[in-house]
């Protein structure tokens, strides 16, 4: 064996048990043009080494048996093509979003499914992720939102006392079932819309994808608990109206991520925070109030996330606010001919706030629902102001929001 030639000792390890792993490590640190010696006692080491080197492009010179005093079986030279994968490879941003330039303005399409921060071999497929612009998607708070969302997950079985007896009067229970039926179809759209955008977002914006995935999981859980609550007393679900579904359809049809986030989360889910707060205060049984409490916390996170990326987007793109306002106006006109919130839901809310179908109780319930609608509108105005709309603009846009709440 030539002096200075590194020796790789394989012992009895063969290529049927991973000998190539040790050789690859040794070859990686070998300078091009230099050789390394291989020694080992596996009975088929030489022919297997030959076959492996042929496939990998390495040069292999098998030493005749017993020709080497130190028992070297073969000498290897690394293939000139061994490290070409890293030629021209680029770092796809950085994994840690807090590092400067970690999140690039427009990630390359051929980074595709690679992890952000990976060293990406050039070439390969270019999956069509339509949403690939940082300014449309990103918020520096996304990682924190995701962490908070992941930490706030709750188990529908453990978090809700399903075994608690529910003994509402039939008319009150029917009102609960009607409201739950309404909530479920709203949660379905709140599940489908982010889930659809999730598959269109470039994976470079990892935390945005993760946050949308958790939002989808939240909504799936809400659909579960609302359904379980509605059917808890053995009732079928109640009425779903055309007007309600038409209002939701406009959210489903919206292809623009910013507008969809605005309509669904800022306007719709924002309004739902008030509605769920109302149910937390006025639902007739602790179980329903508990469900309202849990789902309201989730919805509040969804609204905060949408506000964060839209606030950033609106700062960068000064035309965004006008587009959002036009979208609300367009949706208002599309829904003008529809009935808005169906009477059954409205009346059910009055009944729940009344607690009993007695005249004075109904009067009180009615006033509470009026107060709810006032609160919803004020909250919308407040969120619109945070997005930079003037007071007059916020008043107008808030008043045009669908009467169907979501």
């Amino acid at each position, binding site marked *: 064996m030539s002096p200075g030639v590194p020796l790789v000792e394989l012992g009895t390890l063969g*290529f*049927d*048990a991973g000998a190539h792993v040790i050789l690859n490590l040794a070859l990686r640190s070998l300078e091009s043009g230099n050789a390394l010696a291989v020694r080992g006692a596996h*009975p*088929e080491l030489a*022919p*297997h080494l*030959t*076959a*492996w080197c*042929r*496939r*990998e*492009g390495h040069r292999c010179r098998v030493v005749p048996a017993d020709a080497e005093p130190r028992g070297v079986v073969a000498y290897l030279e690394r*293939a000139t*093509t061994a490290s*070409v*994968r890293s*030629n*021209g490879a680029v770092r796809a941003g950085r994994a840690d979003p807090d590092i400067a330039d970690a999140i690039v303005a427009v990630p390359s399409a051929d980074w595709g499914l690679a992890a952000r921060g990976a060293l990406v*071999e*050039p*070439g*390969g497929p270019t999956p069509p992720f339509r949403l690939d612009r940082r300014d449309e998607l990103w918020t520096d708070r996304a990682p924190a939102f995701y962490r908070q969302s992941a930490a706030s997950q709750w188990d529908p079985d453990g978090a809700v006392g399903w075994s608690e007896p529910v003994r509402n009067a039939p008319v009150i229970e029917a009102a609960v079932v009607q409201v739950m039926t309404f909530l479920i179809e709203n949660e379905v759209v709140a599940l489908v819309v982010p889930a659809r955008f999730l598959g269109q977002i470039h994976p470079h914006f990892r935390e945005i994808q993760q946050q949308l995935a958790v939002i989808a999981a939240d909504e799936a859980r809400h659909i579960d608990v609302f359904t379980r609550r509605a059917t808890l007393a053995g009732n079928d679900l109640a009425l779903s109206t055309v007007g309600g579904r038409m209002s939701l359809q406009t959210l489903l049809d919206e292809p623009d991520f910013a507008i969809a986030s605005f309509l669904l989360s800022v306007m719709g889910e924002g309004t739902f925070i008030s509605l769920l707060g109302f149910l937390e205060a006025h639902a007739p049984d602790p179980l329903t109030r508990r469900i309202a409490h849990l789902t309201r916390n989730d919805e509040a996170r969804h609204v905060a996330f949408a506000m964060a990326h839209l606030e950033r987007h609106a700062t960068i793109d000064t035309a965004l606010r006008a587009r959002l306002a036009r979208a609300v106006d367009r949706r208002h006109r599309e829904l003008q001919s529809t009935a808005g919130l169906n009477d059954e839901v409205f009346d059910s809310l009055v009944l729940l706030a009344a607690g009993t179908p007695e005249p004075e109780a109904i009067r009180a319930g009615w006033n509470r629902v009026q107060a709810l609608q006032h609160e919803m509108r004020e909250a919308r105005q407040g969120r619109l102001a945070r997005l930079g709309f003037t007071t007059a603009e916020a008043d107008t846009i808030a008043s045009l929001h669908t009467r169907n709440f979501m």
Partner: protein
Amino acid sequence: MTTRPFTLGAVAYDPKVVTIWEGFADWFARHGFAFDYVLFSGYEAQVEAHLAGSVDVTWDSPLAWVRTRRLAAAAGREARSIAMRDTDQDLTSVVLVRHDSDLRVPSELVGRTVATGAIDSPQATLLPLAHLAREGLEPGVDFDVRRFDVMVTKHGDHIGGERDAATALVAGEVDAACLIDGNQLLFAKDGSIPVDAVRTLTRTAPYDHCTMTVLDGSDGATIDRFVELLLSMSFADPQVRPLLELEGLREWRPGRTHGYDQLEAAVDRLRFYGPDGSITASGYPR
């Protein structure tokens, strides 16, 4: 009059064949070379189409090379190997037995059962069986052959037959199994052959595998350009590297034919083709 682009014949043994040749066709087009390809369901049809002038070059299995050469010679013509993969040169096939087998030398296979690949697999049937025949063991006479006929007429390009043979050996259904050396490593890696489950009873001499074949009478300048372009494909080029990886090579090399001598002899010994390229193997579908 329009002239067709330089047209290659290849056998569709796997869906990836379309990806490979679509990709190479794009690459040739980017280099200003008019190229097209035709896929055949099997090598016999491809060889016959080549002789009939339907294609200009064929991406041949070693067995297809032997038949093309013989058919051409019988017609007073000449076949030429113009290029092959680096991984086509100096392969060996092995006859494996279980590690705990009592078999120590090939002659002890008398009365035993040997698993092979498909009837038309050079690497997993013809070459190892001829190798055993040279050791004095006549297949089907001195030992039983259990053939795993997967995708017959595709000359063993589909490795399913070899995998079935290896699996039968590991399961104790046969006494020995024939496969190409590279697939022994592949099957070890994917777990088809467990660690220390087998050992090599005997190994063939080195031989060559696939080749780009042309016949005399083709346009020499076009062929030269085709070969020049093939040999220029660089594994460092990210555009062509995925195609080279799919096709299983790091670089194209100039063709050579001395690596087919062993298969020519095996074809004669096992009477697979006649000297004129006629199909003489019994039980072979065409």
